[in-house]
């Protein structure tokens, strides 16, 4: 699974700290999400999608085996 969090954060011109504060997570979690080391839970993915005003699928790109078809 890939994420567009880094790209979207840069577009919105916000720091990792600001994003972490908005999502009520640590900065380290934002870093790990951005570099794909950690996969967000459904609740966190939903919060991120709400924050960027997008759908989950637009932010989290699921790879072949992660999709039904």
């Amino acid at each position: 699974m890939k994420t567009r969090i880094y790209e979207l954060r840069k577009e919105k011109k916000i720091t990792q700290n600001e994003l972490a504060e908005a999502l009520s997570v640590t900065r380290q979690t934002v870093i790990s999400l951005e570099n794909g080391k950690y996969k967000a839970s459904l609740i966190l993915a939903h919060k991120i999608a709400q924050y960027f005003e997008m759908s989950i699928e637009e932010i989290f790109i699921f790879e072949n085996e992660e999709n039904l078809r």
Partner: protein
Amino acid sequence: MKMLGIFCSANVADNEELKKKLKVKNTIMFLFLIAGISVILATVFYEKNDGVFKNGVTSSFYYGIGSGIIAASFIMIIRNLLIMKSEQKLTEMRVNITDERNIAINYASIKTSVAIMLTASFIISFASGIYTIHVTKAIAFLIMVFLFSYVISYRIISSKI
């Protein structure tokens, strides 16, 4: 990097809820403090009246345990009181203990530690059997308690979620 304590993850929605949790924790710590003082007092009493405690080694062991419990609980009480006084520290702590990545790390670390502890326990249990069977029995009992409590808690939790 801030490390999350073994039993420190919690599900709190806001700082007020965290304050309540810290108050409960402080009550538990106060009970530990009393337990530590009781251990010291009991050791002083037995040192004067019991032969086993007069050798010095046993009493030193219990003085160590008692003073350790007192020091740890006292530090925790002061730390929690200081956190409760500052909104910023409360927020920092809340984010740290509710952060899902921290919780995931916490669970994975506990899993690894349990595997290492069980392996070490089995090895020590086997090795100690050569010298004294009592240690083997004690460790075997602890392993049984662990496995039994795992099965019971698994069944209880699986019925809830």
